[in-house]
């Protein structure tokens, strides 16, 4: 980092109990903000105004809640993984079952909220970027549900790796556009979605899939995903009579992690752990862990930690999981890292795969490769923690989409 901008990362004079970011300009300390082409500035202002108005509207809140209940299937269970906990011999592991949502991941919470906003703004077309395809499927699903046109941008490389999800999106009536520029993965899909949005901004809403992008997106996606943490909080108080000790989630852009963490940020006793994709290991340079090994910079509308070279060019990332294969991360995570409110670690492809198999056999839950990174952290750390320590992991998605990738890696032809 070459500029000292804004104040050092701190929750403010009142401490974490009054945590209330972003500020009016969308900043989380030095991170966040709004770094886009002038053409989009008005659309972002409009989105922010509509969002604030809708969130203050009881009718909208009730509608969102009802859609989450009857269409998405919320609340999702908080499941005590007893066999796993007993085997590990330490902390009690609880799983927040976002994999049981309609479409199989947490992504639909925010896609649904944003599509309702789009509909309210009179936008008849939505666009989305997707890596693993989960956000694309969620967007295509809510578009079908609400009668909106949907175009999904997906890197050509990811179209190949995630063909079941591509077909799913097409079945739902969406147009999937393979992106052939740059590295042909998630970051390039984001670039292409931005180009579409700048061209069709009058009648199109861009449903960003994670807690990144220009303000107000990191705030909007976080707020819609916070249903995860709010339910977890109530479920813990209800069944355990207390707050959990540790929350763990995988972090690509970071929406499932922030959805879980956010309602607990003010509770300083709760430890927050974000697990990034370590790929072949941080030392190899081939990973997707900007919080663990990146530097602050500006990409895709916000200032955050990025993987870049000494000239500021964004460098290629690697992860076995397409959903974590992204060189940036949500700006609020960047802030929470610098402020030392959350800690971020990296788990390698191999450890994530091992955890995938272990938990599948032990608990009968096939988790997504993204999620498996968080499970790997638990396999390593739960044994060292006392038996009354409660860990909640965000089981952010199911792994059906990944079975071809895993089989191919292990030399099995399906």
């Amino acid at each position, binding site marked *: 980092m070459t500029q000292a901008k804004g104040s050092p990362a701190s929750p403010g004079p009142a401490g974490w109990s009054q945590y209330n970011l972003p500020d009016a300009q969308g900043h989380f300390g030095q991170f966040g903000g709004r770094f886009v082409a002038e*053409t989009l500035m008005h659309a972002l202002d409009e989105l922010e105004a509509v969002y604030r108005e809708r969130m203050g509207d009881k009718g909208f809140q009730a509608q969102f809640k009802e859609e989450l209940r009857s269409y998405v299937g919320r609340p999702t269970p908080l499941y005590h993984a007893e066999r796993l906990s007993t085997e590990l011999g330490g902390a009690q592991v609880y799983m927040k079952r976002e994999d049981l949502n309609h479409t199989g991941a947490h992504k639909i919470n925010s896609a649904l909220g944003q599509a309702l906003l789009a509909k309210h703004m009179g936008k008849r077309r939505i666009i989305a970027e997707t890596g693993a395809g989960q956000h694309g499927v969620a967007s295509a699903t809510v578009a079908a549900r609400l009668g909106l046109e949907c175009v999904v941008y997906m890197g050509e490389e990811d179209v190949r790796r995630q063909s079941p999800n591509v077909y799913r999106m097409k079945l739902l009536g969406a147009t999937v556009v393979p992106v052939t*520029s740059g590295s042909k993965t998630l970051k390039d899909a984001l670039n292409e979605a931005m180009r579409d949005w700048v061209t069709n901004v009058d009648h199109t809403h861009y449903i960003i899939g994670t807690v990144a992008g220009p303000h107000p997106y990191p705030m909007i996606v976080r707020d819609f995903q916070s249903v995860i943490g709010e339910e977890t909080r109530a479920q813990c108080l209800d069944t355990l009579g207390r707050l959990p000790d540790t929350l763990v989630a995988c972090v690509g852009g970071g929406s499932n992690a922030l959805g879980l963490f956010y309602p607990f940020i003010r509770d300083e006793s709760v430890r927050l752990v974000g697990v990034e994709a370590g790929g072949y290991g941080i030392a190899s340079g081939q990973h997707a862990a900007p919080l663990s090994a990146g530097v602050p910079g500006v990409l895709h509308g916000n200032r955050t930690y990025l993987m870049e070279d000494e000239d500021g060019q964004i460098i290629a990332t690697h992860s076995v999981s397409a959903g974590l294969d992204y060189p940036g991360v949500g700006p609020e995570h960047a802030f929470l890292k610098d402020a030392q409110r959350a800690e971020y670690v990296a788990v390698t492809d191999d450890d994530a795969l091992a955890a995938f198999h272990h938990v599948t056999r032990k608990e009968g839950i096939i988790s997504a490769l993204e999620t498996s990174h968080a499970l790997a952290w638990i396999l390593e750390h739960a044994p060292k923690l006392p038996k009354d320590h409660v860990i909640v992991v965000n089981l952010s998605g199911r792994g059906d989409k990944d079975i071809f990738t895993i089989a191919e890696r292990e030399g099995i032809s399906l």
Partner: protein
Amino acid sequence: MSRLATRFAARKAAGQKALVTYLVAGDPEPQATLPALRALAAGGADVIELGVPFSDPEAEGPDIQAGCERALRHGVKLRDVLAMAKAFRQENSETALVLMGYLNSVERMGYETFAEAAAEAGIDGLILVNLPPEEADALQRRLAARDLDLIFLLAPTTTEARARAILKRASGFAYYVSLKGTTGAGHIDPEDVATRLAPLRTMSDLPIAIGFGIRDGETAQRMAPLGDGVVVGSAIVRRMGTLSLEEQPAELEGFARSLREALDASC
């Protein structure tokens, strides 16, 4: 008076419009750039925007994306771009030179280091596509301290209040993005540009150049009367991508001259 202001003022005094051209530095290879800069200047460019190649040029259409990728394959860095600009400046003190790119390149180098190096290279201004005025204070202060202009963009979606605020803090010239879209898009609409530019012209005396979608003499001629100058970029970058190193200078000079003549015929 800055070189940018001088060039625009001179054209205005002569009842003419300024020609602003763009190319990606180091595209398709580093040694192409200095001859290309000379050719554009010889063909009548008043201002040359030298594109800083970036890995994720999210506001660019396919031509400039491809130009960035060609330059990056040769490992062209911001420091190399500054060196190219300096080499050109040593032999040409008339043509205004503006760097155009994305904030992360400048951020990585550091605002202060960049401002110092840019001034030393003889650069006149900077356009950062993804740096709106709201986030620009720290950089603009450092540029202004060295008489470098930070050029802001105005778009068809910019509200009147925003346009007023942007024009108030802009220097050098303002860049009017003629359409909703990426660079090199094909749907420019002169009537829409005329309608939207008219109020902007009353807000400030700052020269306004019109860009995005101006591809040839004909479109340049149609847009010219609406502003103080036109920007031609993708059409040049496309030529750089298809012509050999030997062909580029003569072709570029001829193309710039054809644009210059079209502009002069429009007045």
